[in-house]
């Protein structure tokens, strides 16, 4: 059981100051130009008051859009290689939702299941998550259908749940305890609030274990084609997704020097699997859409004993042609 405390609004102010003094940046959802995105903040007052989710996920803190893997200089007959070091900033992610906090586990699974990825690990090590429970949900949300919940603690180092005058604070991990230890006086005794009464109520939309069990037999089902007819293959779903981890490796070079970069990619792009011969194993958009579903709901459970989806709904909110993942999963589960 987590240690439960109360963190008043005033003390949260103090905690932000302490964290910054400790040399950490605090990233939190901020309203700007009609969007809510993570940004550097100094005070809790800067944090968005009304957000359900940021548009982009927080994954770029541990998995930047573009990251240098190595660099080199070349001369005729010789190459000098330079290792790259991730310049990971000590970061506290404040206010991410429980779904997103949990998503870091799905990234970790891929980056470390066999070979260990030092870039991801260096950033993850320097990151702590102070999640905030959801008190409302929208039509895109379905965390309760994928094993999560609006006040789920998984992935958060400290989880805050809004209560009168501040937050209920669950200190969950060693990283969470280290934060608490910076200013223990700010964390006052908890008052035995039932957070389930405060958290958003979100009905389960489909039976995920049943869906996962039937997917292997549904590969040729026409439903994938129907669902993807309007998909324009823009890849927005993958870019906003907190668990989408597929990447490309690109070269940026001039004749004397260059660097090798890891960049976000998407299985929704036709070139993702295109062979040099011109053969493409996933030739149609429906095959690519199906891959997206199968990777998250079939491959992930089989390989990593977890789902590759946290039900945050970011893909649905970002989709320019209104594909609703929750609805599509409900349809598949009922097929």
């Amino acid at each position, binding site marked *: 059981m987590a240690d439960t405390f109360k963190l008043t609004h005033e003390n949260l102010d103090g905690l932000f100051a302490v964290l910054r003094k400790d040399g950490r940046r605090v990233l939190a959802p901020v309203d700007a130009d009609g969007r809510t995105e993570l940004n550097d903040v100094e005070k809790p007052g800067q944090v968005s008051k009304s957000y359900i989710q940021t548009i982009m996920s927080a994954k770029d803190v541990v998995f930047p859009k573009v990251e240098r893997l190595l660099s080199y200089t070349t001369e005729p007959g010789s190459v000098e290689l330079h290792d790259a070091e991730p310049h990971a900033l000590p970061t506290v992610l404040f206010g991410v939702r429980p779904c997103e906090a949990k998503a870091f586990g799905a990234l970790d699974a891929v980056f470390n299941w066999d070979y*260990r990825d030092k870039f991801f690990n260096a950033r993850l090590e320097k990151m702590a998550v102070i999640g905030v429970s959801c008190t409302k949900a929208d039509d895109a949300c379905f965390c309760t259908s994928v094993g999560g919940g609006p006040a789920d603690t998984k992935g958060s180092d400290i989880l805050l749940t809004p209560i009168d005058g501040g937050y209920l604070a669950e200190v969950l991990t060693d990283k969470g305890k280290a934060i608490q230890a910076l200013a223990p006086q700010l964390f006052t005794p908890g008052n035995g609030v039932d957070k389930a009464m405060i958290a958003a109520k979100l009905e389960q939309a489909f039976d995920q274990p049943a869906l996962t069990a039937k997917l292997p037999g549904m590969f040729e089902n026409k439903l994938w084609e129907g669902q993807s007819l309007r998909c324009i293959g823009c890849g927005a779903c993958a870019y906003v997704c907190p668990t989408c981890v597929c990447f490309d490796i690109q070269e940026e070079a001039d004749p004397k020097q260059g660097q090798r970069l890891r960049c976000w990619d998407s299985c929704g792009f036709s070139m993702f699997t295109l062979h040099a011969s011109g053969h493409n194993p996933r030739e149609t958009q429906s095959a690519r859409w199906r891959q997206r579903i199968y990777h998250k709901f079939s491959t992930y459970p089989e390989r990593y004993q977890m789902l590759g989806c946290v039900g945050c709904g970011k893909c649905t909110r970002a989709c320019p042609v209104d594909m609703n993942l929750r609805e599509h999963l409900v349809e598949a589960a009922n097929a």
Partner: protein
Amino acid sequence: MTEKNIYLPYLMRITQITEESPAVKTFRLEFVDEVAAQNFNFKTGQFGLYSAFGEGESTFCIASSPTRKGYIECTFREVGRVTAALADKEVGDIVGFRGPYGNVFPLEAWKGKNLVFIAGGIALPPLRSVIWNCLDLRDWFKDITVVYGARSVADLVYKHELKEWNERTDINLVTTVDPGGETPDWTGKVGFVPPVVEQLGLSAENTVAIVCGPPIMIKLTLPVLEKLGFAPDQIFTTLENRMKCGLGKCGRCNTGSSYVCKDGPVYTLAQLNELPAEY
């Protein structure tokens, strides 16, 4: 930082270049770093990512046999940005290599069996590694047969080695070119690989077949092998899905729950039958 950078390639010096066929070359590569050279080991079937610094990385098998020490070889066709840059290299130039990655052909399990290799076009290189490995361990196996086809005589790769295999008595080589691809002095067969395999009168008993080629060749050869009595677990192939990392992370080669770069590239037909045909 104590963790190793898994994306850092070895630096390799090109010590030999063989022009195999139009736009196809073989590089012999030696480690620039001697310690790396001594510590390097691979098994037949494995692959790597080869870099042309300035352009990027491409995935090819290791085309040489692990029994031949001190170097690795790769054979590639010039088709894109990286392979074009590689094709421009000269002996003495430096390229990068990451690997070895992926699983291996189970030679131990093949001890005492007949081996039939069936390859088409530019797909001989992955099998060439196995063939030389098996020839260097010749007493492990019974009969070794190689059926190799290409569009034309000019498209056959490893011409010198084909000649050598042809002259050896411990390997039965059958070469064929597509109708119209023959030259006046061509002494091999004329015809597509599947019917040529069918005419050989192979027995499936105590035999494994190792097949690699363009999708159409594989598609038409498998029914022939089935007809000859080969069971799906007696048929091996090696896939080469598009890859970027080779480390089971970038997601490109994922098909079904398999990562070709980790669970493959070597699969039996029995294993492939369990996967969606997205390769």
